[in-house]
């Protein structure tokens, strides 16, 4: 049987790069959106909480910050909450723990949540969603670890686990 070389060559030219392309593509979890903000300055913002205060994020520079986007209705946020309560207690005075709740959250819901599960830090209200957009938040909870010079060094999308939280905090200090 005669072997036609052309189809083999064409198949190799088209097929091999395509297989490599697909192999690389399938290694990527489509649910994970890599943050382009890593290694860059954390966007500054000013947000209010439900108790009458506000935070100027730029004024926190000089000390590391754990910036956590959460919501009162979010079950994964419930799961990670005790870890944050514990970490905030342990790193008090060394690390700022700042929470941001989304547009739809309410003072009552946030108050009920923290009364029931404990409070690890202030919860500021992203009333128009602009701060969440500036950080590229797409999945609650999301946690940004910001070094004392204001650079985002790590991001966790989804609930924190103890090991990740401890490693990230140690890296900040």
């Amino acid at each position: 049987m005669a072997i036609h070389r052309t189809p083999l060559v064409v198949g190799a030219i088209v097929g091999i790069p395509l297989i490599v392309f697909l192999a690389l593509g399938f290694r990527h979890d489509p649910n994970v959106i890599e943050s382009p903000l890593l290694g860059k300055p954390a966007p500054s913002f000013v947000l209010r909480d439900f108790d009458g205060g506000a935070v100027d994020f730029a004024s926190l520079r000089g000390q590391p910050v754990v910036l956590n986007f959460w919501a009162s209705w979010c079950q994964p946020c419930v799961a990670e909450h005790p870890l944050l309560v514990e970490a905030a207690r342990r790193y008090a005075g060394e690390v700022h723990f700042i929470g941001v709740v989304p547009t739809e959250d309410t003072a009552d819901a946030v108050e009920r949540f923290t009364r029931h599960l404990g409070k690890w830090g202030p919860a500021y209200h992203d009333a128009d969603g602009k701060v969440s957009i500036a950080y590229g938040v797409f999945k609650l909870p999301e946690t940004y670890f910001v070094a004392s010079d204001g650079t985002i060094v790590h991001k966790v999308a989804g609930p924190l686990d103890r090991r990740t939280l401890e490693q990230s905090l140690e890296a900040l200090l």
Partner: protein
Amino acid sequence: MRRAAGLGARASRIESPLRGVLLAAALAVLATALAQAQPVEPPGVPVETAPSAGEGARDRPAEAAGGDADSGTGRVSRAQDDFAPLDEAELVGPPAGPPIAGEELESRTRALASRMRCPVCQGLPIADSPSASALAMVSQTRDLLARGYTEKQVLDYFVRAYGEFVLLEPTTKGFNLVVWLLPVAGLLLGAALIARRLRSTRRAARSGADPSRPDGDDDLDPYLERVRSEIGS
């Protein structure tokens, strides 16, 4: 029948070079379908189940206008009137165009929002998504355009935060060029193969050979010869 056999043989010879291309195209389509087969909301993502703005959103209480200053936690007092949570100019520079409003603002917002991907949906532009995230992104798009930011600046603003994932059309640079050039390359390759086959067919016809008859081996097949004689060809 003879014609059918000839066509079959010819088809199999034409198909051979194209088979790789077709297989590659099928694999690409399959890969795209699999890549997009992610859930609308990843497990544990609560955004879609959140109460709507009408149900749950609530303006900040009036007394929140002036909080106690506490430098240790970054807490400051803010006047309610000039409250702006972010300074976008810090992130993408000052607006490069004139402020716009009215119908022009709405149409440009709609056009730009149609080019950005909703991060919590399945391949939907933010213009067509009812999710809270998408609505906030459309609102931010409108706000930036109204203040005079150009379309490129607005897209850069979202890409800075979400990466190129947020663009429904990948940019035509770097590795993304593959997405744009591969279909064109496939078409050109297919056209070249067809042209080559046609040329050889014409050449065979000019030299008196029957182009529908494959070379050589059918002469050795007595059954095929018998079929040809029976159908009178």
